[in-house]
């Protein structure tokens, strides 16, 4: 149940759920085989719960986006409808993470065994968020000296809406999201930072990040769904179901909190958390207190 709450919360908070599912059990000296069918089934249920929570939270957006995409394909053309544009941007942004996820998941998995490596990536995640916020602030505070330059810079510095992103921007955010294949690097952190650097507001960057995460989490859990019904997994079906519901409730609460948080706050508190927790875990790993 602790793992379910941890997954639901850390999947959406920019603190790396993968990193936490490696570091927290190591800190608590929990020993379990990650390749065991029962554990895999449990993890699939947690991811499914998180994806369902995201779909429910953004249900109005998804209905509009799905309708816009279907009518766009039926029409055979692209219109200026913002929902249609956001839908296609999400498709473009999902391609890089799907490609890299399928091809790099196995080689990256060897990092999972080392708490020191995961803690190092968590510290790196903190610096990515600090750097992103710093660059963003520099973008918005640099004022050119002459009036003409100021006027043209004003246009370049004013925040953009999601529908104003280009295809290349969508792919850049998609690649940034792929960094989360590394345990310790946060999916939402990387994609929010990429959105901020593309001049989205914190609120829009977070919304785009959560919308972009939904198909990826859904597809990843859908592909693993047979593991949930494997004969060996039947023994933990009830626990998996409860875990999935718990992860869904936690994920829903997390996304509700984060969308409010990014109205008026930034990524730095999460950066400080990752830096402190990552440094603590790295210290314990180097001192051989955790594996």
């Amino acid at each position: 149940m602790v793992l379910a709450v941890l997954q639901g919360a850390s999947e959406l908070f920019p603190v790396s759920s993968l990193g936490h599912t490696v570091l927290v059990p190591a800190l608590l000296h929990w020993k379990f085989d990650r390749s065991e069918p029962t554990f895999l089934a449990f993890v699939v249920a947690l991811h499914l719960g998180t994806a369902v929570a995201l779909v429910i939270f953004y249900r109005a957006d998804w209905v509009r986006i799905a309708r816009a995409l279907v009518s766009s394909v039926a029409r055979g053309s692209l219109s200026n409808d913002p929902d249609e544009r956001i839908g296609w941007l999400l498709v473009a942004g999902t391609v890089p993470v799907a490609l890299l996820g399928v091809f790099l998941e196995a080689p990256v998995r060897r990092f999972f065994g080392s708490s020191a490596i995961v803690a190092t990536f968590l510290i790196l995640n903190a610096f990515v968020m600090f750097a992103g916020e710093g660059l963003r602030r520099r973008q918005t505070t640099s004022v050119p000296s002459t009036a003409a330059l100021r006027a043209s810079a004003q246009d370049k510095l004013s925040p953009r809406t999601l529908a104003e992103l280009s295809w290349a921007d969508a792919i850049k955010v998609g690649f940034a999201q792929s960094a989360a294949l590394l345990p310790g690097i946060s999916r939402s952190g990387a994609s929010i930072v990429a959105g901020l650097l593309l001049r989205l507001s914190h609120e829009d960057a977070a919304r785009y990040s959560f919308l972009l995460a939904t198909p990826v989490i859904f597809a990843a859990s859908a592909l693993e769904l047979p593991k949930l019904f494997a004969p060996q997994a039947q023994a933990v079906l009830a626990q998996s179901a409860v875990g999935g519901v718990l992860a869904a409730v936690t994920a829903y609460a997390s996304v509700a909190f984060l969308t409010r948080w990014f109205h008026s706050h930034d990524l730095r508190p999460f950066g400080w958390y990752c830096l402190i927790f990552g440094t603590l875990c790295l210290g314990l790993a180097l001192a051989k207190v955790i594996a």
Partner: protein
Amino acid sequence: MKALALALAVIFFIIGFLYLFGILQIGASHGGRHVSHFVLFVVLGILSLVWMRFASSGASPQR
């Protein structure tokens, strides 16, 4: 553009089925069939067909 989109769709579908039947093993962690790779390439194939549909009606990305 239409021909390129169609060619890409065909290539993606072929690659997808090669992974499904375990003929293609590039980037795979184990031998045998690779359903994830198959699904990925089929989706890419479908997206290429959508691109072909847009290209044939003269619509192109604005940005």
